[in-house]
């Protein structure tokens, strides 16, 4: 294969083309440290789960890249032309859009697990696309949702987060309970100290 455009802890992203569409392949490669049976099981379970959650999110109206195919250890999806939110200067409008995006996801019963500007793409159409469901879970609990909020709050800073959370609260019926849980989590010691700073 060609050179990966991105290398993460458990997967690499390769450029490709499917049905004449610009696409990317998210490939979970083998890990030398694991015994083969465990290695194969982790990679295939996670690939299937990630694809399933992407499809579920899409069916609930969350904007994610179109799924083009899944094999044992690879997910093929439409390539979104644009920039990562983490590389852009985030506008107030975009912070609000991100709030609506997370609200739609949580209403679909999905917790993202790594909801940061590194996993939101700003398309050339100006719309936001959510990617990287590698740590996502089907969950309706307050804890997981509050942790999604915590992560983005840390990364956005107060001004943008205020706009973000306004739209999020308008979109999620149980928002008050979730924000209360977030406050509790922030008081627990271990999360206070967990920034990488």
């Amino acid at each position, binding site marked *: 294969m060609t050179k990966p455009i991105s290398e*993460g*802890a*458990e997967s690499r992203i390769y450029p490709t083309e499917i049905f004449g569409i610009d696409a990317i392949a998210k490939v979970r490669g083998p*890990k*030398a*440290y*694991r*015994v083969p*049976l*465990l290695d194969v*099981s*982790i990679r295939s379970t996670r690939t299937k789960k990630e694809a399933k959650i992407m499809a579920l999110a899409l069916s609930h109206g969350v904007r994610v890249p179109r799924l083009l195919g899944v094999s044992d250890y690879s997910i093929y999806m439409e390539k979104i032309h644009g920039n990562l939110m983490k590389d852009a200067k985030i506008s107030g409008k975009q912070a609000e859009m991100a709030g609506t995006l997370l609200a739609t996801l949580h209403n679909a019963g999905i917790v993202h*697990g*790594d909801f940061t500007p590194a996993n939101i793409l700003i398309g050339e159409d100006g719309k936001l696309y959510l990617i990287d469901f590698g*740590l996502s879970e089907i969950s309706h609990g307050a804890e997981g949702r509050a942790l999604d909020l915590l992560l983005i709050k840390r990364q956005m800073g107060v001004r943008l987060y205020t706009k973000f959370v306004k739209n999020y609260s308008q979109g999620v019926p149980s928002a008050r309970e979730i924000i209360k849980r977030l406050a509790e989590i922030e008081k627990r*010691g*271990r999360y206070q*100290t*967990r*920034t*990488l*700073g």
Partner: protein
Amino acid sequence: MLVLGIESSAHTFGVGIVDGGRVLANEKAMYKIGTKGMIPREVAQTHISNCNAVISAALSKAGIKINEIEGIGYTKGPGIGTCLQVGQLAAKTIAARLCVPIAPVNHGIGHIEIARIMSGLKDPVALYVSGGNSQILKLSKASRRRYTVLGETFDIGVGNMFDTFARSIKLDPAWGSTVEKTAEGGKYVPMPYTVKGMDFSFTGLLTHASRLAASHRKQDVCFSMRETSFSMLCEATERAMLLSGSSEICVCGGVAQSARLREMLKAVADEHGARFGFAANEFNADNGGMIAFVAERMLTRGAEEKLRDCTIEQRYRIDSAEVFA
């Protein structure tokens, strides 16, 4: 600076002597854990009876007399209260008698710092794995004066999981390290694998393995438990390294004595062209050498504590201890 350090947070009473970062002596006596586990009062009693002999052994190993000692360190915590008190009292007594400065040391910082510095690493992601602890840490970027916890166990330490399992299937001796020996030549059977980002959990694995032990070969269950738990630790460590932008890994604590865990972490490091390091086994088991080692770094930077402020703290948090990296 000739510094003597005393460790007594759990079943080991250890005394180390260092000078300029070189460990001149590292002696210890251990309480034998019976089937009932550790009985705090009994452990403390054992430490008291071993105290003088271990100190003397360390002094003669280093070839020095007690009045040549220029500073004292002791484990402030975390650990069992009655056990910590034995080391604290001995340390304060010596410091008062010799009129030398004293430094209270965090036990976990002892393990990490001696592993980090002895293996020549600057800014690693540190996997600290022992009976009670399983954490991934890194020096905070801004100050390098504290360790930040990047990930940790949701429930029990990985060593505790092995110990409990060893006892439940009556391995002899009933310690975690016997699980590793029994695992040799085993075959993999599926086990619960729980990693959430940089955090992980071991109770599900322990329960499942204990159940499987009735119907499967001991060898296979031990093998699968080891492979599954170590893979979880490796995955979380790998993610922590990439997310924090580090390119070094070090492993420390009792479970770091496992050759298999080291081999796996080395493979993680190799995949990313990262460096991998660990300390000699005598510093991974509980020991006084690491306490002396950290105390010397504190004392040469003027971080001595007034005698009356030399307390113990059973739940002394690793991320609240000031370090002199």
